[in-house]
C-alpha cells in the first residue's frame, strides 16, 4: 500500500480525532461535548479521504451516513444536557 496524499490526510485527521477523544475524556461535560462534535466532523472528513484514497466508490455512502448520524447524535446529547440542567 502506497501512502497517497489522501491516506496521509486521513492519518492527520485521525490524530486530530484522537486528541479530541482525549479532550472529551478529561474535560467537563460541555467542553467534552464540543470535542465530541469536532471529532464527528473529523470522522466524516477522514472517511471521505479514505474512500477517495482507496478509490472505492461503493463505500461513498459511509461518510454520508456518518455526517447525518454525527449530527443526530450530537443533537440528542444536547437535548439530554438541556434536560439534565432542569
Amino acid at each position: 500500500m502506497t501512502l497517497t496524499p489522501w491516506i496521509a490526510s486521513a492519518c492527520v485527521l485521525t490524530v486530530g480525532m484522537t486528541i479530541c477523544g482525549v479532550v472529551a475524556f478529561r474535560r467537563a461535560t460541555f467542553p467534552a461535548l464540543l470535542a465530541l462534535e469536532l471529532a464527528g466532523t473529523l470522522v466524516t472528513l477522514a472517511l471521505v479521504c479514505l474512500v477517495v484514497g482507496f478509490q472505492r466508490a461503493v463505500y461513498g455512502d459511509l461518510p454520508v451516513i456518518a455526517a447525518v448520524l454525527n449530527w443526530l447524535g450530537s443533537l440528542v446529547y444536547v437535548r439530554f444536557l438541556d434536560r439534565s440542567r432542569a
Partner: protein
Amino acid sequence: MKSDVVIALLSFGCLCEAVCVLGVVWFRDAFDQLHFCGAASTVGLFSFVAAVAVQGFATASGTIDCIVALFLTFALGPVMISATARAGRRMEFDSLEPRPNEYEQQP
C-alpha cells in the same frame, strides 16, 4: 499538475482542521472553543470538496457521494453548533437573556 493541486488543497484543509483541534485543546473557555468547533465544518471543508472534485472517481457516483457528505457536514454543522451554544448558555447562566454587565460591555 492535478496531483499538485490535490496535495495543496488537502494540506490546506488538514491545516485548517489542525488549527480547529488546537483551538479546542488550547482555549479553556467553552464558548471560545465553540468558535473553533464551528469553523471545522466550514473553512477547511471547502478545501476537501475542491480536492474531491479535482481528483474524482472513475464513476460519478463516488464523487457525488463524497461531495454530498461534505455538503451535509457544512449545512448541518451550524445547526448543531447553535443548539450546543444555547444549551451551554442555559447550563452556565440558567437563561438565554443577556446579563446586565454584558449590556455594559457593548460598544
